[in-house]
């Protein structure tokens, strides 16, 4: 059965949640969104859930995304975590190692010191023997992915090593950094909460 969802005007993570819900009872759907973050998030969610995705640009900044479940994935849609990270969460480590960077400062007490420490931390992360699998940047942590943040080259180096970097889209909007995020993928609360809840180890500097 195929349905059409109108998610125009909805902010992240609503479009992804609507998509997830609709895929639980439909094999095919088309969703319309009107912002780039929602477009990227829905597309990525659908791909990670093992669906075929076709996109087309419609008028006035509206994107249409046609999502079709692949036959073998029809039963798995309610367990997106395994598909999103392609990790066996029953493995001995229990899941991916996740670094949560919730601020552009490390610790509290003095903000200038905190900012220096965080840059130093991200730089050191590139040389760790056990690199994280995923890094999440949220709240002021998203600033680190901008050129002014002083850590973008390190984050890029980590991406090249295969580290997945999730950057909170809501936070990017809040700090008016749209178009300035130079590393990582814009993400949403659905994916962030899912990543945290399936992590084997969470490191929060």
């Amino acid at each position, binding site marked *: 059965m195929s349905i059409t969802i109108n998610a125009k005007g909805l902010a992240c993570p609503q479009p992804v949640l609507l998509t997830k819900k609709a895929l639980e009872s439909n094999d095919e759907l088309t969703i319309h969104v009107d912002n780039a973050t929602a477009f990227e998030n829905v597309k990525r969610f659908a791909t990670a859930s093992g669906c075929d995705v076709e996109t087309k640009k419609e008028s006035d900044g509206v994107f249409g995304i046609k999502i079709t479940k692949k036959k073998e994935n029809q039963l798995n849609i309610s367990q997106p975590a395994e598909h999103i990270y392609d990790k066996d969460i029953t493995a001995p480590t229990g899941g991916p190692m996740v670094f949560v960077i919730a601020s552009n400062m490390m610790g509290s007490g003095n903000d200038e010191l905190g900012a220096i420490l965080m840059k130093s931390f991200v730089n*050191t992360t590139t040389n760790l023997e056990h690199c994280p699998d995923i890094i999440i940047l949220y709240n002021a942590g998203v600033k680190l992915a901008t050129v002014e943040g002083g850590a973008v080259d390190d984050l890029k180096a980590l991406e090249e090593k295969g580290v997945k970097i999730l950057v909170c889209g809501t936070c990017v909007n809040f700090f008016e950094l749209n178009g300035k995020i130079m590393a990582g993928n814009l993400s949403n609360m659905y994916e962030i909460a899912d990543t945290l809840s399936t992590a084997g180890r969470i490191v929060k500097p």
Partner: protein
Amino acid sequence: MKNQTYCVAMFDSVSHVIKAEKILKKAGIPHKIIPVPKSISTDCGVCVRFLPDHRNAVTNALMSNVDISNIREIIL
């Protein structure tokens, strides 16, 4: 990124590093805050890294503003 020759400037305290960073940022001189490389010191310190090409610019900008305790060339 690997095996590039850099200069690192060391300072007597973290507050000097913070001050130096502000000055270099304002002057638009490319630099980066990194932990002091283990080969130089095992102290828990941070330093300012920059390319050897910017050495003069860095020393000029910081001169009479912040005391640099040491500048070393290092391959990172």
